[in-house]
């Protein structure tokens, strides 16, 4: 690839790091208005929703059912009170069996 690759990598690293670093490092200790703080507290739950849908439907190209089964199994195990690990391993297990027989 040559030196151009490394310059590109440097650029990629920089523009990825800045949005991660600036808020954590420079918002430190500053009191935010309650409404802003409230919005920021909502973000983990909103972002999880956006990360899951619709991407989970497309984990296997051309087979939406695969993602639907996976999401369904994960949801069920989580609903039954399984922790994150049982949810992850249980879902992989079910889909491994499904993939073997499809």
């Amino acid at each position, binding site marked *: 690839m040559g030196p151009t690759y490394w310059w590109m990598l440097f650029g990629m690293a920089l523009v990825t790091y800045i949005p991660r670093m600036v808020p954590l490092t420079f918002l430190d200790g500053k009191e935010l208005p309650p409404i802003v703080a409230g919005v920021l507290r909502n973000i983990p739950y909103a972002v999880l929703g956006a990360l899951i849908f619709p991407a989970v439907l497309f984990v296997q190209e051309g087979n939406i059912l695969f993602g639907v089964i996976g999401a369904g199994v994960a949801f069920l195990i989580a609903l039954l009170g399984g922790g994150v690990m049982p949810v992850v391993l249980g879902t992989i297990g079910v889909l491994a069996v499904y*993939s073997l027989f499809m």
Partner: protein
Amino acid sequence: MNKQFSAGLKAGVSIAIGYFPVALTFGLLAKTAGLSIVEAIAMSLFVYAGASQYIALSLITAGVAPFVIVMNTFVVNIRHFLMTASLNEKMQPERKWVKALYSFGITDESFSVISTHKDGRISTAFAMGVIIIAYGSWVVFTGVGHVIGANLPLFLKAAMSIALYAMFIGLLVPSMKGNRKVVILAGLAAAIHCVLYFTGLLSTGWSILVATLVSSVVVEFIYVRSGKTVESSLAKEVNE
């Protein structure tokens, strides 16, 4: 300190498992895109952002100009701005350089695990634990993928592609139980992202950013009128 760190490592195991097939595939694709093992590992080591690394590979293969690839990376990763601003509200006070250091390890996945951890102020040690095991998995399995990726049984690789989403669901569902605000937040963001995705209005990176922000703001304004926050409604359920 040590207990918090090992709790973080433990909480991060699900990310490490989830990264395994994704990093393996990345390593394999990097090889087919003509990257050496050093170049492939370097990208995982210095950039550490799954989606944009995949996009970079396809753009490299397509012969796109490096500057465009860098701009693309920025657009895809700008959503982390929102996450680290949110996380800052929950993290224990810490020296600036330490925060600047661990902020490198904030991904969609580590953010989700760290920010849904329910022990009041989140310790730096816990965050470090989550980040180190996740980052380690990403870098190591990029290298492994470059060497052997093609040899993983197909059915297992297919099944493991669900891991990250299963983890997201496993993190979200317990908070959703009996908390309508969390259900609305996740549901609204998912709905907005679906609309933006299927209409092709925005690329994925921007779409996640917009969906998250709109949902968080709209729901907050609705709930401010009734005087509830996510935490106070969670606390209410505990008391009931």
